[in-house]
């Protein structure tokens, strides 16, 4: 089943010439043609001849013995990464016609490693959302169904919901995501796949459409922890075009998986034990703790006293940065334009027509917290609280190697639920936002199903630039959990080969 492989399995198959990159790519394209109308996971699917030409080139490199790290592996690209000559929308009406004349560093790195791009995956507009319902190209449906209520359409999480739905349903072996406050980890947890937000600075942000620049970080969304390591290795690396990009060497991340975790100290943050946390999420967390204990880890209670303020701080800093980043969409240099008699009129009409409601609200919040008279009370205050949140992590990491928490406070919900009150929606990110604020790496691993048959994920948070320990612990959880469940909508379901 060529649509059900991990990257690691596919790479072995290609290297052994069990199948060709062309066959592998064709199988994904067929699955996309069949299932994308149900899921809306891809906004743009590349023309078959383009995809197959890339696959043929990969086959030639395998034949010549020059294959790269990701050679011939067909993947989806979140439609937030600029791709040269391929429309890049950020799921916004504003950019519905934008064809970048350049390639983002992360996608250029993946192409250099030989990856074959299938298309651009759907997301929340400008990556702002936790359910993939704010896309101007329509919401993404999760391939998962509640076993007791199969008629409800569930959300795939967000903002990288097209990527998570595609990887879970077999429409690409992996996909890129971006994470600003949980946008890789939460959709990975909702769709039963692996998602890794690397340390801030590990991947270049150049050419990735900006939301909140001090938080945005690209990462892999895959079917195994080893795959996440492999793909991160291809994505990461120094880039002089991003002044915040790290010039530390990129380790062979996939080799960290399978390493013994014996003797590692795993912190359990007391403040994440909210009394409102559903019993099944708590039970899964306890199970994860027990698995790591069996693997020889030492479990330590730790305190992150400012956890409670993570989300509120985020909802000042992220909108503030978003309001400045999105100031560039003015109807003049790229994107759509709505005409008006005055220059200000063009800006106002273009931005009212181009931005959806959630994006507008975040720009307005950001404008408010940065405006004269409110800057100190909101923005400066939030930056100070952010220092406290980061210190919490630094202090905890003096005593432990990683932290273990649930990825999200619940399993996926249905479209229409949690939609009226933005604050309720924001609470989905309560466990993922603090690591983003501190800039530390964090991984979501699928570990089990809840009572409705929906996936739940656990999050492993590590020290700055210590993705390797995060991946080792993630690998141990993966091995213990043995999560092999597939969603109801899957390319392999009902098909012979």
């Amino acid at each position, binding site marked *: 089943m060529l649509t059900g492989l991990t990257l690691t399995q596919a790479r072995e198959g290609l290297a052994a010439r069990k199948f060709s990159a062309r066959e592998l790519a064709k199988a994904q394209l067929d699955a996309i043609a069949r299932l994308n109308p149900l899921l809306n996971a891809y906004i743009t699917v590349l023309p078959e001849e383009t995809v197959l030409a890339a696959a043929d080139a990969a086959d030639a490199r395998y034949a010549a013995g020059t294959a790269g790290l990701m050679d011939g592996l067909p993947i989806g690209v979140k439609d937030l990464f600029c791709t040269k000559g391929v429309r890049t929308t950020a799921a916004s009406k504003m950019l519905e016609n934008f064809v970048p004349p350049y390639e983002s560093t992360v996608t250029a790195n993946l192409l250099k490693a030989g990856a074959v791009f299938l298309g651009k995956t759907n997301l929340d507009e400008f990556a702002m959302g936790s359910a993939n319902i704010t896309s101007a190209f329509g919401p993404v449906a999760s391939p998962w169904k509640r076993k007791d209520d199969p008629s409800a359409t569930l959300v795939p999480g967000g903002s990288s919901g097209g990527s998570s739905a595609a990887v879970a349903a077999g429409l690409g072996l992996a996909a890129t995501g971006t994470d600003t406050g949980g946008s890789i980890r939460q959709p990975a947890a909702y769709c039963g796949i692996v998602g890794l937000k690397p340390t801030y*600075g590990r991947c270049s942000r150049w050419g990735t459409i900006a939301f909140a620049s001090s938080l945005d970080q690209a990462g892999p969304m895959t079917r195994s922890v080893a795959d996440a390591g492999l793909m991160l290795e291809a994505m990461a690396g120094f880039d002089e075009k991003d002044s915040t990009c790290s010039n530390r060497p990129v380790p062979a991340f996939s080799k960290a998986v399978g390493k013994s975790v014996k003797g590692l100290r795993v912190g359990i943050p007391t403040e994440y034990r909210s009394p409102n946390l559903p019993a099944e999420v708590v039970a899964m967390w306890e199970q994860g703790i027990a698995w790591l204990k069996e693997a020889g880890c030492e479990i330590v209670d730790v305190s992150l006293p400012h956890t409670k303020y993570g989300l509120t701080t985020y909802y000042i800093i992220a909108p503030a940065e978003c309001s400045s980043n999105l100031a560039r969409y003015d109807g003049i240099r790229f994107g759509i334009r709505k005409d008006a008699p005055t220059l200000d009129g063009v800006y106002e*009409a273009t931005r009212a027509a181009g931005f959806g409601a959630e994006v507008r609200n975040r720009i307005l919040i950001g404008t408010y917290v940065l405006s004269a008279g409110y800057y100190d009370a909101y923005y400066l205050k939030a930056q100070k609280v952010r220092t406290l949140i980061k210190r919490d992590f630094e202090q905890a990491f003096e005593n432990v190697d990683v932290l273990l928490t649930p990825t999200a406070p619940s399993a996926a919900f249905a479209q229409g639920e949690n939609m009226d009150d933005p604050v309720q929606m924001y609470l989905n990110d309560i466990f993922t936002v603090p690591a983003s604020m501190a800039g530390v790496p964090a991984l979501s691993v699928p570990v089990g199903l809840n009572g409705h048959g929906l996936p739940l994920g656990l999050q492993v948070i590590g020290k700055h630039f210590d993705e390797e320990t995060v991946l080792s612990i993630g690998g141990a959880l993966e091995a213990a959990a043995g999560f092999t469940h597939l969603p109801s909508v899957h390319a392999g379901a009902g098909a012979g080969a």
Partner: protein
Amino acid sequence: MSLDLATTRRIAKLARIGLEEHELEATRQKLNGILGWIDQLAEVDVEGVPPMVGTETETLRQREDKVTDGNCRDALLACAPETSGPFYTVPKVVE
């Protein structure tokens, strides 16, 4: 702190988002809900705490002061919704 209609109008003007008069009240309520929730930050004591700018994992680098990009005028202009020769066009701003 509660947002009034005049402030909502002013923020929309600052952000150059042309809200219709009938959208203002709904926007005001949405923003108020979010701001009310954000107000819990007031209780945190940040006396003597420096603001965190970026994630401070890397120090800013310097590079040689030379042109590293350019000669792509036409490619960039091709992204614009309206151009005239090698120029972006805007409504007349000076009479």
